[in-house]
Every structure is written in C-alpha cells, then in structure tokens.
C-alpha cells in the first residue's frame, strides 16, 4: 500500500502559527502532529514588571477574537489578590460584556468558518452566493456582539473599558435601552439559527473524551465556577488546576500540550452544553429537544449546534441583565493593593481560560501563567483527527482527507480567526 505524507507547513490565519503533518503507512496513521505556536507564552514575560492596572490592556492584545475572556480571567485573579469583591452591578455587567464576546465570536465561527465546511463550500464568500440570508444573519449576530463589546469596552477590538474593581465608566441608560431594542430584534435570528445548524448535513461520530468546563451552582458557565469534568469525575477549585492539569512540551510544537491526569480533554461550547444544559433557560432547552440531538453528545461536530445554542443564550442573558439596568453609584469597587497570588478561570468562547498571577506589595506583576483554551484543546484535536480520519477512510483521496482534517480542526475554533482555507497542502506519495 502506498505510504502517504500529508504536510501542511503553515496554518494561515491562525491566532498564532500552526501546521499539520500526517504520515500514513501500510494503511495506518503512523504520525499525526498538529502544531500551533501560541503567542501567550511571550505575554507571560511581557507582563512581568508591569503594574496591575496595565494588565487588562496587555492581555486584551493576546487575541483579537476573545479579548474579554483574557481580561475577565486576569481581573478575577487580581481581585482575588487584592481581596476585592466587585459589587452586584459590576458582576452583572461583566456577564453582559462576556455575552457580547460569545455573540461576536460564535456568530463569526458558525457562519463564516464552520458552516461552509458542512455545506461543501470553500469559503463563506462562496457560500454567500447560495445562502445570502444565512450569511447576513451571521453578520447581524456578529455585529450585535461587537456593539455590546463597544458599549462597555469603548471599542470592539481590544476593548479598554474594564478595570480591576469594575469598569472605568457605566453605559448611559439610553445606550443600554437602545441596545436592548437591538437585542430584541435579534432574538428570531438566534432562534432560527439553532434549527438551521441542527439541520446541516452532520457526520456521525462517537468519540470518547472528557468534557471540561467551569461550573457554577446558579448559572450557566461563563464568569466563575469550579473546574468540572464529566468523566473522569472532577470538581475542583480553580486554585487546584495544576494538581490535575499539566502542560508538557512536545517535539513537534512550540506550544505546550495540556493534559488532565495524562489525558486529552475537550473544552468549548460542546463541553459546556454537555455538562450544563440543565442550567439553560427552559425555552432554550425545549428548542434543543426539538432538534432531536441528544446531549450530552460525543459527536464533536455537534459543536456548531452548541455554538448556536450559546448564541441564543447569550442574547437572552444580555436581555435579562439589561432589562434591570440602572446606573450604579460606582462603576468600580475600591481596593487596596497588596502582594499575593491569585487565580482566574472563565469561559472564553472556545473554552476554559486559566490565569495565575503573582503580585508584589506595590502591585507589580512578578510572575504570570496563562493557559489558553487552544493549547488545552490541542491534544484532543490530534486524538479527534486520528479517530476521524480512520472513520473517514484512509483510502480516500488526499484532497478529501485534507478537507476533512480542516473541518475537524476548525470545529474546535482554535483561535483560527477569520479562516476559511487555513490548510495549504503539500502531498508527497512514496512509491
């Protein structure tokens, strides 16, 4: 049987740089390496020596798609160090802020990145000719997410409104009222999206993986909670992350692989739905039941449906928060700078994002650790590719295998911003 080497030297349009190489020998995958070179490692060093009030602006620069996640994990850690408990207004508005990011990121991924894979198009631009209404819906949902980000952050890209203790300023009553009207107008889009994603041609897969996310007693995972795994069962405080989760170097990647007790695991919307569907509002649970998809699901391609569900949830949650909006006495809580170690763990659109900071008595960062969801998902993506390509058929032509590999990788939304064709493939056949 012909030996096949699939080498993808550059994963273009990745937040960071990546490559994929697969070697097939005697009808079996001999090696399969996904390498994503994550920039956050440099940011950990950039942060050392910076004062606490510079941290949020710096970490927002790690990712153009999910800056709020980086800000919210960092602020949680710093407030733990300074023993600062933000007021109820701040807590609510941070959740609304985060909803904006989920909308923006998920809206982009579902319509522009993932849907063309399911429908057999090379890009959203091609898909738009046959599915203009769906692509326009994606633009609308993406835009409303950006507007919520701008409401709190001053701008949608690398927002600057959040600070330790809360926000530098509170949005006006009129701005929130206007936003509420726009959210209301988007509800039908989001409801339709769930049924649409569930109707997409779906590849059947049944894989075994731990679904991991944070979990909170009273709300769907987003801003805070314990670290939770379904199987093996795990429920631990964020401070104990490194007792079970270890990063390790692998030869083929400059990014660290993170494993839970030696096992790859899955983060992101599918894991959150798998673990916490019961925390969604009843009307959303009914819609999910109507799709016919059974959650928890071990078909990773159901991630696109999970993202659609979370879009609807984020809209409803933002509406709930804004419906009771009033101007606060203070948009940020007071605190005293002190030395210490703090931890932050929140749910970025693409999964759990863990931070740890050490601060000296003057408020300067002496060390930081940032473990983004993409590096945590990396080992799982490789496992998925291994199983998916076997299920797909290693005897298929190489273009088809490449496209399927792309679909599998993209399905995790691994900080691959705005990509439609991110694998440029060189195939070498050995006689």
């Amino acid at each position, binding site marked *: 049987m012909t030996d096949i080497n699939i080498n993808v030297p550059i994963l*273009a*349009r990745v937040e960071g740089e990546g490559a994929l190489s697969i070697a097939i020998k005697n009808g079996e995958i001999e090696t399969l390496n996904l390498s994503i070179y994550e920039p956050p490692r440099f940011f950990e060093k950039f942060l050392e020596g910076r004062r606490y009030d510079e941290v949020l602006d710096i970490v927002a620069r790690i990712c*153009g798609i999910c800056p709020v996640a980086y800000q919210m994990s960092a602020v949680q850690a710093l407030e733990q160090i300074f023993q600062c408990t933000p007021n109820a207004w701040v807590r609510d508005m941070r959740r609304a802020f985060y909803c904006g990011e989920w909308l923006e990121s998920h809206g*982009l991924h579902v319509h*522009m990145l993932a849907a063309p894979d399911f429908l057999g198009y090379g890009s*959203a*631009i*091609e898909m*738009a*000719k046959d599915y*203009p209404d769906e*692509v*326009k819906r994606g*633009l609308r949902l*993406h*835009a409303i997410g*950006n507007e919520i980000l701008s409401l709190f952050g001053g*701008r*949608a*890209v*690398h927002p600057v409104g959040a600070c330790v203790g809360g926000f530098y300023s509170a949005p006006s009553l009129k701005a929130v009222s206007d936003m509420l009207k726009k959210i209301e107008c988007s509800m039908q889009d989001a409801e339709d999206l769930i049924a649409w994603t569930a109707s997409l041609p779906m590849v059947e897969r049944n894989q075994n993986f731990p679904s991991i996310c944070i979990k909170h007693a009273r709300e769907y995972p987003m801003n805070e909670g314990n670290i939770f795994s379904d199987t093996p069962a795990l429920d631990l405080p964020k401070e104990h992350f490194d007792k079970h989760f270890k990063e390790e170097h692998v030869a083929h990647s400059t990014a660290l692989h993170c494993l839970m007790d030696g096992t790859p695991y899955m983060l992101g919307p599918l894991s959150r739905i798998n673990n916490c569907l019961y925390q969604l509002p009843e009307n959303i649970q009914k819609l999910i039941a109507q799709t016919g998809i059974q959650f928890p699901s071990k078909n990773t391609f159901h991630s696109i449906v999970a993202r659609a569900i979370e879009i609807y949830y984020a809209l409803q949650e933002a509406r709930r928060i804004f419906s009771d909006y009033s101007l606060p006495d203070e948009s940020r809580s007071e605190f005293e700078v002190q030395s210490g170690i703090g931890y932050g763990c929140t749910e970025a659109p693409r999964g759990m994002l863990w931070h740890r900071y050490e601060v000296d008595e003057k408020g300067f960062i002496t060390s930081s650790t940032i473990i983004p969801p993409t590096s945590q998902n990396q080992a799982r993506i490789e496992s998925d590719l291994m199983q998916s390509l076997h299920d797909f058929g290693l005897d298929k032509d190489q273009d088809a295998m490449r496209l399927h590999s792309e679909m599998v990788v993209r399905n995790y939304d691994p900080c691959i*911003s*705005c*990509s439609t064709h991110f694998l440029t493939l060189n195939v070498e056949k050995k006689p």
Partner: protein
Amino acid sequence: MIKIIGIGSPFSDDRLGWNVIEQLQATFDKTKMNNIDFLTCDRPNMSLISLMKGADEVILIDAVKSENLPGTIVRLSPDDIFESQILLSSHDFGVKHALELAHSLNLLPKQLTLYGIEIGTLSYNDQLSSDIADAIPMLVSELSQYINALHDSKP
C-alpha cells in the same frame, strides 16, 4: 452619505489610515459637511460591511504592500481589489475578503475606492517612517480636493 474610513492598527506605518482621517477632519468644518462621516477602525474584519452600511460612497484608506516603493499612493476600485494579488492591508481576514463578501451579498456601496499607501517593513513602535509621513499630506490634499469638488458641485 459619504463614509471615509481609515483602517489600521495603531502601530508604526500601519496607523497611516488613522493619521489621514485625523488630518482630513482637521481640514474640514464638520458643520458644513454633514453628509460626510469620518471613521477609523482597527482590523474590522467582517465589521467593515456594517461600517459601510448606509453610505452611497465609501473611501477606504489603508496600508498596502505590493512591489511599489514605500510611500507610493495607489487608488483601487472594487474590481482592482478583487483581481489584485497585492496584499491589501496587513490584516488577515482583511479588506479584500470583507469586500468580496459584501459583493457576494450585494452590500457594496454604489461607489467605493480604496486609497492605499505602500508601506515597507514595519517597525515595532508608534512612529511613522519618513516615507509614509511624507506621503500622508499628499493623500490628504488629494482627498480634500475631491471632497471639496463634490461639495461645490452640490446645488
């Protein structure tokens, strides 16, 4: 309604779109130009489509990279952009992709022109290189004349 949109990150020569907008805004009495909207944005991706919404004419200003000398000003129509192999802007899902998507969805304005200034190797600071600093006033002058001509031609 005309929208003039400067695109770029705030660093080095990539911020030239912002500088052009700042200088244009300083040139005009905004109260007499209520049909012109000046905007700046940092890597708008798909949001460029919603930024263009409502405009009959859009003028985009961005850094470009091709084979020209740094500081060269280029003017591109949508067709030029779609056919061009030059790297339009330094951003990934860049201006070209956003405009192609808008074109697929019939969301392009009636008239659209991209004014680009060729950039060289970017440095990691917030200063403009001399080539770009010299080119910006020329582009501002050209755009000012164009806008004034439009304004004067109105009854």
